[in-house]
């Protein structure tokens, strides 16, 4: 699960014409753009933990269907640094394995939402007229329902599974991106460099992909990075209602919602998976902020 572009790749994004050695490049980005460096590092941590979960988790079986009737709801100790849950499973192990699920759900939802929403929004904004009308009315229909309710409806008609959770949430998520990018694309389409691109004989499709999209993408990147936490929580709401990930699955959102019942007396059930969600959300926010700066040549300069 490729969560974060490794820092070395962001150097390529900056397009430095001379390759000054990978490490030097990373250092240069870190100095010029600390947000990006921190965000990327945090994402990297998540990826590493997800990959190494079987190795570093003290009780790998607890991520599955194992139960330990004699060790339920133990508070954090040396043996169970994050405590144990209501059926005696090690919370640390489950949080570590959760790094393989929750961020992946978020990423898949956001990738699908972007893949559907961005092309539609860009086309609506650039072409205007009836294309705009048709696309935006369809978006309005989706936006007319409360997002969670719509996701519930879609999840309810499908078999509860992680894949179906992803589909159900993505269906409610794309209209927001279509709408954000449409407004941006409409304003970009009216700028002189787009007219100039047309006067260069560049075909519409290429103008859309290479000129309108890159110039409209910034607010979407910011929004996507802010939405990572939101998607994880929405997915957990579906799980909570029995329509998403099912119990043995160590989904962070599911763990938080199951732990709620015990929160006042056994704080660790909610706190650690909650902190993992928070960490992931912050990681992506910083990454998004940093990316925005890198993608805009004017900002890179003023930093």
């Amino acid at each position: 699960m490729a969560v974060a572009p490794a820092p070395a790749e962001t150097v390529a994004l900056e397009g430095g014409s001379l390759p000054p050695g990978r490490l030097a490049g990373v250092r240069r980005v870190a100095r010029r753009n600390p947000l990006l460096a921190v965000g990327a590092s945090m994402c990297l941590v998540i990826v590493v933990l997800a990959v190494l979960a079987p190795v570093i988790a003290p009780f790998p079986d607890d991520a599955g269907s194992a139960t330990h009737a004699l060790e339920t709801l133990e508070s954090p100790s040396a043996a169970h640094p994050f405590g144990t849950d209501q059926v005696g499973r090690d919370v640390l192990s489950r949080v570590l394995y959760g790094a393989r699920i929750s961020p992946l759900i978020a990423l898949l939802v956001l990738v699908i939402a972007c893949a559907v929403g961005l092309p539609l929004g860009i086309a609506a904004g650039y072409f205007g007229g009836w294309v705009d009308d048709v696309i935006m009315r369809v978006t309005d229909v989706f936006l007319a329902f409360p997002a969670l309710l719509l996701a519930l409806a879609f999840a309810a008609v499908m078999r509860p599974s992680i894949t179906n959770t992803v589909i159900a949430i993505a269906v409610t998520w794309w209209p927001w991106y279509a709408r954000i990018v449409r407004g941006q694309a409409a304003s970009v389409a009216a700028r002189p460099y787009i007219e100039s691109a047309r006067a260069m004989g560049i075909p519409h499709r290429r103008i859309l992909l290479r000129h309108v999209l890159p110039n409209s993408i910034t607010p979407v990147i910011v929004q996507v990075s802010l939405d990572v936490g939101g998607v994880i929580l929405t997915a957990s709401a579906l799980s909570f209602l029995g329509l998403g990930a099912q119990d043995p699955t160590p989904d962070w959102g599911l763990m938080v919602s199951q732990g709620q019942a015990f929160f006042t007396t056994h704080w660790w059930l909610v706190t650690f998976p909650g902190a993992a969600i928070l960490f992931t959300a912050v990681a992506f926010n910083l990454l998004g902020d940093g990316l925005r700066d890198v993608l805009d040549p004017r900002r890179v300069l003023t930093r």
Partner: protein
Amino acid sequence: MNGEPTPAPRPGATSAEPKLAVRDLRIAFGARRVVDIERVDVGAGEIVGLAGESGSGKSMTALAVLCLASTLGASVDGSIRLAGEELVGAPESRMRSIRGGRIAMIFQSPVSALDPLLRVGDLFERALRLHGASRREAPERTAAALREVLLSPDLLSRHPHELSGGQAQRVAIAMALALRSELLVADEPTSALDVTVQAEILDLLRRLREDAGMSVLFISHDLAVMAELCDRIAVMERGRVVEVGPTARVLARPGHDYTRRLVAAVPKIGAGTAPR
């Protein structure tokens, strides 16, 4: 319009057919007609000015020459011929190769006419590759064009916001050179520049005509600038060409009342003939 004879072709001319021949051009938005031009010619290597105040249809005419007026929802009819080839109603694929290839356009705000996310070098690379230059050929033609407009090759690694207005306009002109365009449509190319830079760009356009034999359709509201640059001037008022003629004659002895008023509005032009 008033039967002014086309001047003898300049040395760059190869055929009797003018480089650009506009006949009975009518552009309308729905029922509202914004341009109605009977005849405008641009000979090979000739610089023709299209003068008029804002809203007179100059820029619409420029867009029509590139067959882009329809993208704004306008209906175009009549005839626009580029070296004999009819452009009105030409298939879009054909027009795409003509735009940027045989006809280049430069704009009023040179910096904002360049995509802010691309380096100047990328702009050249993409434009040249789009119009059929090979990977090896593109850098050579770019370098030659930059030399022609007296820009340093260092500029290739800059983003548009790192260019001055004059540099950006030179880049746009260099692009036309690199693409070996035959006709340059210049829509108020100097209006956003300060006077000294303006003079440099005009000088550059003149040299372009001399050295590359490029024809120029120069659109402006500024008669003082046109007096310096253009061989002939067509004056537009509310979509119609009310007067065409050699620059000196039009400015010294305007044949139409509207031209007279335009000339009178410009300080120190027309050798004091401005009537009241």
